[in-house]
């Protein structure tokens, strides 16, 4: 059974149906990516998973348990953690405080300290900037903070929304390397990206979305080579 199962969900913004029956399955320790153009419903899917939006029909299950009517903070408490679009770090808190906020729903002080050390090993750059106010960091560094903050929660599944957005090509490379590294440490990742080429390149499994529906599924590599995908997204 998959860790995260999204089963035919329909999500509405008032009367507009944004998701018209989306089903996604994410297996343990996989990287699954959701690609598609602007407005295809990728972010909406993530918002439904994290409980900010509630699907009108269909079900979302984590390890077999339904997340349907839980408030966002309880879903987060269950280990579904987001790296939000546009990073959205706490700009007026220090890097250190941002990391601490990531571990907000945990109580094991010693393990939190250990995790912080691991994050600083993963992102050595943050070590130098620990006491710096996060809003003053560069875009790439902010992405690191956002990712580290999410990992501090020891997620069962990490939802990443457009992690490459607004970054320089060098940083984009770095971000995808980091995603792969995190995954190799055993973290399950659902990655939403517009940069289909890069995303499918590292993904075990991919879903292609178009106006609220999944139009294609397949292994990452296969999708990369798929004619339709190439024409539509890779040019």
């Amino acid at each position: 059974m998959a860790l995260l199962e999204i089963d035919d969900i329909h999500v509405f913004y008032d009367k507009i149906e944004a998701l018209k029956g989306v089903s996604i399955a994410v297996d343990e320790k996989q990287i699954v990516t959701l690609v598609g153009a602007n407005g295809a419903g990728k972010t909406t899917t993530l918002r439904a998973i994290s409980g900010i939006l509630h699907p009108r029909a269909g079900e979302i299950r984590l390890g077999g348990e339904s997340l349907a009517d839980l408030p966002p903070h309880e879903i987060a408490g269950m280990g579904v953690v987001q790296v939000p679009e546009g990073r959205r770090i706490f700009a007026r808190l220090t890097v250190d405080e941002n990391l601490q906020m990531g571990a907000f729903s945990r109580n094991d002080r010693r393990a939190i300290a250990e995790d912080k050390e691991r994050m600083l090993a993963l992102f050595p750059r943050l070590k130098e900037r620990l006491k710096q106010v996060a809003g003053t960091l560069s875009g790439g560094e902010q992405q690191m903070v956002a990712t580290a903050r999410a990992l501090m929660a020891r997620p069962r599944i990490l939802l990443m929304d457009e992690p490459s957005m607004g970054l320089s090509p060098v940083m984009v490379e770095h971000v995808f390397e980091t995603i792969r590294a995190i995954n190799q440490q055993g973290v399950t990742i659902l990655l939403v990206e517009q940069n289909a080429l890069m995303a499918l390149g590292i993904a075990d499994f991919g879903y292609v979305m178009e106006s609220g529906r999944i139009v294609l599924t397949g292994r990452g590599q296969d999708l990369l080579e798929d004619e339709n995908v190439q024409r539509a997204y890779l040019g």
Partner: protein
Amino acid sequence: MMAGAAARRVAGSRRAPPSPLQRAAVTGLVFGILGLYLAIVGILAMIHGRAIIVGVLTLGQATLVAIGLGTGAMIVRGDGEHGAWSWSTLLRSLFAGAIAGGVLALLVVAMDALDLRAIFIALSPALFEMLTFDLGLAGGVLVLIGGSAALAALGALLTLGPRAFRRHVLIGCIAVIFFGVFQELIQIMMQYGDIIGAVRETIYTWEGLTPEGAILIFVIATAISLLAARLRGGERSDAETPPAQRRNARIAKAAVAVLLLVLFPLLAGSYIGQVMMLVGLYILMGMGLNLEVGLAGLLDLGFVAFFAVGAYTTALLTADSPHALAAFTAIPSLSYWEAMPIAVLVSVIVGVLFGIPVLGVRGDYLAVATMGLGEIVRVIVQSDAAAPLLAGAQGILQIPKPWLGNIELSDPVDLFYLTLACAAVAAYCAWRLENSRLGRAWMAVRDDEDVAQALGINLVKVKLLAYGLGAAFAGLAGSIFAVMLTSIYPSSFQLLVSINVLALIIVGGMAACPA
């Protein structure tokens, strides 16, 4: 006419690189015109009526002196950083001073010859007397020009003199002027107490400082300034001392500040006690609102409602009036100490009730919504509908003062200590909160609600906590406010109070507790 001449002169000096002498002339003119301006708009004559040292110096004369000294100082400044002492500097200052004085002298002559008052109403005979120093036209002109030149030379000398010396003298002079200008206020403060009263009588008459007082203040201020400089110099040298020692120094400084805070109202009497008491109340409310606005980012303009709730709860529970609960229910009339925690508790409850409807509202809308709620509370209290219970616009009277053992805390100074103690406790709580998990959660919510929620923060809980705890502080302040006035009216709880508190924390620095 004269201003035109000056402008031409300035323009002329701009064309060719100005010789030192030209520059001196221009400087003198500028200061002279400054004096002229002050005279024509009437400031000079007006502040001449204000004595700094009785029978010796008025504020107007002090201004003239300052103009003279300033001329000389400017001459030296104009010579650049390494302006060294030379006879030429002195001569130029004399020259510039004479010109500055000359401009005023021209005014005097013109006033004598023409009827300038028809145009400039401020050029009164009183001004004439002041500018001629009661010496008649010729004597006045001579004194103006000569004195101004001498003062300019003095100013130049002072500026050239050792820097440390100059600063201390300047501080001494400023202290004298300060005590002179604010004499009414300071005298009122010093009216109470025997020793202070005696001190007041030596340094003040009711019109201004006595000459002895002025000298005394000058000496004391200069000495303090010297001492402070010595201390500061010492501190600078031990900048490399271990941080522990420096922390000790900081603690010592804080202790001195607290000691001053504790002793000051005792020395200064009831009037200042009352003022400081109000300051204390605002500090309390400021800390409360800081939790909401500064930490949790919930802009709340209805804060005064919690203040009102605290005040009314205290009033209803303790007052000796037909509106008190004791008058028509079985609840006994409580002492202040019993009523205060209840007032705080009720405020918290109201705070949470307040928070619920505006949970989903953000930003500017939140400010408007809370403002509305705050006004609702006031209007309800004022309305006829609630009048049987809350006494409407008449307010609740005869709230007893708190008793501590057998002592009635009736004097503003006593109540000030109550406020101070509460503020200290509250500050400690606020400080602990700021560095706690909850504090961090608030800050996260402030920076980004959605993400905070996505990280497992229960928005409803932390927001309501912010309202509740913020309200507790205001309730405490309100409770003290009630016993301070011993009577409360709905009109005391205007929107303006909320805005004042908000201004307080904005000026003090958001989220900064010490502020």
